[in-house]
């Protein structure tokens, strides 16, 4: 054993290099968000000024509200459609074509989906707004929900559903009282995934949002494009805190459900 770990010794260098590479830039942003100095590159003492500035920034607040509306809507829609799709694909069809179609939005480059929807919205003369972003985010959100729920379905014991049916329950009753509760952790995980992806999504929103109603990533993009503003460091730190919390909570939750199984 000693011998083997010694042999792996040289692997430690790229291993730690990877983590240094992944975390150093983030650490710099977090430290800089508490920096009093105006230039974001030198240290002028600890301060929370930039967080105050951030709270007063209307375009960021507006972007955040828009993003939350889109993310909530797209999550609800993706979860319902994606879960039904997963159940249908597992129980009612063997078509590999439909199977491939359900995962296509997750594999397709975001830019291609973005231009496709822009072309489509223009062709049907649909005005752009939050609804057009919401629909776009549902397209890929449901692919992820359906993939996660199907993974859960493939581990599921079908005898429970059969028992329910044998005891005279209708398919609808069986779905709501047996299938759905068993799938719940998968559905929840899929919903969380769809929500996080939507919160963060930039490229598709950039093509399908109305200029008057930008989502938060679009607001950040325009701020970053026109130079460095220390407020972004504060915003970055807050967003980091949120996503880290969500990921860790999700991790704990899946461990909890696995323990309960």
């Amino acid at each position, binding site marked *: 054993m000693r011998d083997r770990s010694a042999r792996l010794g040289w692997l430690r260098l790229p291993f730690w290099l*990877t983590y240094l590479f992944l975390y150093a830039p983030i650490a710099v942003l977090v430290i800089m968000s508490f920096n009093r100095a105006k230039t974001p590159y030198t240290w002028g003492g600890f301060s929370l000024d930039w967080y105050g500035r951030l709270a007063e920034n209307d375009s960021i607040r507006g972007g955040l509200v828009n993003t939350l509306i889109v993310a909530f809507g797209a999550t609800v829609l993706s979860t319902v459609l994606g879960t039904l799709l997963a159940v249908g694909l597992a129980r009612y069809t063997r078509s590999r074509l439909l199977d491939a179609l359900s995962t296509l939005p997750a594999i397709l480059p975001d830019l291609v989906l973005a231009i496709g929807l822009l072309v489509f919205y223009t062709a049907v003369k649909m005005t752009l707004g939050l609804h057009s972003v919401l629909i776009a985010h549902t397209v890929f959100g449901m692919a992820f929900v359906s993939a996660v729920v199907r993974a859960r379905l493939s581990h599921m014991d079908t005898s429970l559903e059969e028992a329910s049916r044998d005891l005279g329950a209708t398919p609808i009753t069986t779905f709501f009282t047996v299938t759905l509760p068993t799938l719940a952790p998968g559905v929840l995980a899929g919903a969380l995934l769809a929500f996080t992806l939507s919160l963060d999504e930039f490229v598709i929103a950039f093509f399908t949002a109305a200029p008057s109603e930008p989502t938060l990533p679009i607001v950040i993009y325009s701020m970053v494009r026109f130079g460095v503003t220390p407020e972004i460091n504060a915003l970055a730190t807050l967003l980091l805190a949120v996503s880290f919390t969500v990921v860790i909570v999700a991790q704990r939750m899946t461990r909890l459900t696995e323990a309960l199984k």
Partner: protein
Amino acid sequence: MTGTGPPVAAVRKAAGRLVTLGPGFGFLTVFLLVPLALVLSYTVFRRGRFGGVVHEPTGENFTRLADPLYLDVVFGSVKLAVITTLLALLLGYPTAYMIAKLPAKWKVIALVAVVLPFWTNFLIRTYAWIVLLNSEGMLNSGLKALGLGPVELLYTDGAIVAGLLYAYLPLMILPLYSAIERLDPSLREASANLGARPARTFWSVTLPLSLPGVLTGCVFVFVPSLGNFVIPELLGGGRRIMVGNLIRDQFLKARDWPFGSVLALAVIAVLVLLLFAQAWAARRAGRDA
């Protein structure tokens, strides 16, 4: 329910199929298949004056791809995407290998730590590199202190590669990890017992069997690197135009939708080709194992 005969069951099955598959595939047909079909059809029409198309068939959108101006863009972006992919593989393979060898508890922590930055806003991750590479940034202050700087780091091809690598490295590590994790340890032991040295075991057993994971990781890094337009703009300062920028500009600036559609089609073709290569390698590795 005792009277449930075959016809009722068949009706139920059809109803179940319609209720579960209908809404999802209906939605995907309208908002995915129709848009993709439109993009595909636009490749053979003339451009409209203010975006859109004029319905006159033409082949010139495809011949424009051969214009040296655009070929330069394509080769330039393929070069940067290849460099990014190779660096990701160089850094990602040993990391994934090491994670696969960690004790179970540390394995989970190491994997979550790889994915965690991926869950933070992509623009903010890119912005972090502006802060790092700026002429008055961290790295340049360090170089200045050593008497080596300042060097222009931002707005270079190197900055673009750093940004792309930072954005997509987790997509390389995850498939590599799952491929290495799945390997049967007895194969490596057999190789060692037969007298092969660790390096030989790696080159003739571990690496070939983890090749599908390597290819999946490469596709996951290469394709989005090719199509990214934000990183070349923010970290490359717009000096380097990549395929993603070109597509974006055709739709939002130049209003040449047919040519933009041809470029998008080219990206999809590359993706499909690479996925086929990956599937082929996976089948081969499965046969060898």
